[in-house]
């Protein structure tokens, strides 16, 4: 398959993630959508690494993986701690500050 096929596949997944962030109200699902976006980029990186014959892309994937893991730990802990306080994690309820 040509490179463009992989890249467009990746763009498609990325956009699905973007839409997920915009339309869902559950922060967990928003968070999953962001993971989806990151993975879409990873697909690009692996494909590029293959087609460009360079290791940089795979290295990026590896780093993104680690970053995502760290982000998940912090993010989930934050969501849980908010849940414990207000028993509600709807992001639309979080708009005390505005203007």
């Amino acid at each position: 398959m040509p490179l463009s096929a992989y890249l467009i596949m990746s763009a498609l997944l990325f956009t699905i993630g973007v839409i997920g962030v915009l339309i869902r109200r559950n922060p967990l699902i928003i968070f999953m959508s962001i993971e989806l976006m990151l993975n879409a980029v990873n697909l690009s990186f692996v494909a590029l690494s293959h087609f460009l014959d360079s290791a940089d892309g795979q290295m990026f994937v590896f780093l993104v993986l680690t970053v995502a893991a760290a982000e998940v730990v912090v993010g989930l802990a934050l969501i849980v701690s908010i849940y414990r306080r207000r028993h509600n994690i709807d992001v639309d309820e979080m708009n005390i500050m505005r203007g």
Partner: protein
Amino acid sequence: MTNLSLWVLLLPLLGFIILGLAGRFMPRTAILAVGWGACGLAFLCAAISFFSMLATPAAQRTSDQVVYHWISAGTFSLDFGLLLDPLSMTMLLVVTGVGLLIHIYSAGYMADDPSFWRFFAYLNFFIFAMVMLVIANNFLFLLVGWGLVGLASYLLIGFWYQRRSAVAAAQKAFVINVIGDFGLMLAIFLIFQGAGRLDYAGVLTHTFPAATATAIALLLFVACAAKSAQLPLYMWLPDAMEGPTPVSALIHAATMVTAGVYLVARAYPLFEQSPAALAVVAGIGGATALFAATIALFQLDIKRVLAYSTISQLGYMFMAEGVHNYSAGIFHLVTHAFFKALLFLGAGAVIHALAGEQDMRKMGGLWGRLRVTGLTFLIASLAISGIIPFAGFWSKDEILGSVLAYGNQTGNVWYYILWAIGILTAGMTAFYMFRLFFGIFAGDYRGASVAVNDNTNGDVEEQEAAAAGHHHAGPVRYNSIHDVAPVMSIPLIILAILSVIGGFIGSMALFGLPNWSPLANFLPAAMHNHAAEGSLTLEWISTGLSLLAGVLGIGMAWRLYGKGFAFKQNSNPLYQLVFHKYYVDEILNAVLIIPVLALSRTLSRYLEGDVLDGGSRGISTLFRGTSTFMRRVQTGYMRNYALGILLGVVVIIVYYAVRG
């Protein structure tokens, strides 16, 4: 030459710092010691420098002293320096001298105010800023001083911030001054682009391309017009009368508003490079002089009469500068500082005696009770009316003479018209000044009896209702009115003396004493006058006519109001037009403010509901409205924010897709 100008700058700053930090803990005497001391010593330093300068040969009178060498990287350099030459010397003397008198006067005027220390701190700050403006040796620090005097004016107009009208006035002044500052900034950047430097020594000897020179000169004049309340940026000055009266005298009559006149004189080589800009200066000056004088004819609030008169007199000064006679402009600035400060202080004394009353309809007959004030007020009125031999006569005469001479020299009919406007304005000035004088001092006291119908002048009513600082509890009984204390009357007397003799520093060429014109000889060391020299005949014509106009004006006022002022409703449309200040405020309100308010109200109601409190008015509402509208974007919803980000992304991506 002894040069103490640095101390003139630093002493008021020191005073401000001391008062600002510790003023609230200090007893009144200490506050006065610091406030007066700072200003008095500054005046002393200025005077010493002045006499030392007089003793120096004319060619060596300019001293450009770099105090602080600031930034220097490549072509980019900035120094802070003090330029002491006859022009800045004159200004320094006026600023610190009149400033000192007003400091003294304020001690009496503000005696009952709880924020006594704050007032003196602000006054010292103003003196510092004004001195900075005057003696900076480059445009950048001119801008600094320019901005700081604006700030000081803003603070002092809003000094009685409990009055809503005072706050609104401060805002208006601020907004218009910002327009001027903006013009000045643009001019400075143009200068920098053209000349590569900002110090006067370099810039004023630099020759700019014609178009650039015109642009620079016009932008500078925008700044001058805003600061000196010329058409069409004059609206703030009458409102600025909300401040305490000494402030009106110092800032809004004698010194700050003349900064524009000073700037034109300072930057005259730039103006010389652009005849078009000079014509604009002269034209605007003449138009403003006439326009403001007509408004002043029928005002009822005594301070507003004086405010419009100030605008009109400033117009005279620009008129002189527009016909290349810069020293005449400065001359009138000086004499005007004397008699206008005196008029304001006298008005202040009247207001003080009547416990905050400013409406002419409730005065009258005060000659019997306020002798010193009345006498000095009379002198000042004669001076501003251009009656020989008072100060105003000499300076006004020189201006009108040089306008006529310039018209004669160029053969341009517009300058004859300008001259005619000047004569007409002189007559009107005499009329409204004596209308004011008779209104206050002649006839019977009307304060106790008249109930003013409120459909005449809303502003006055509002001020009364909100008057703070003066405990205004009904009209004052005639017998309880008494003249001011010495602390206030001494400055009045000194200023009165100056208003009488101040003119002799100017030109006496009229009487065949061509060499006896100290100021005119003093200033040209700094600026080479390009003024047209008229023949003696022309001078006599001009002088005679202006004197005649003045006498006629006084006569008319005597006829109408000599027996005391009587306010009559007049339904003549022309009268109504002038009485309502040409409806400028109303038009602005209708054209700009009300639609903006309505628009933003509708928008905000549509979007959320109650948002805009009706309290904020003025042009700032425009920005407020925009701002309030724009902050609606910040909905507080995380998902909306993400949408905003995506919108940005899509715009960028599509831009590149289309562009390829």
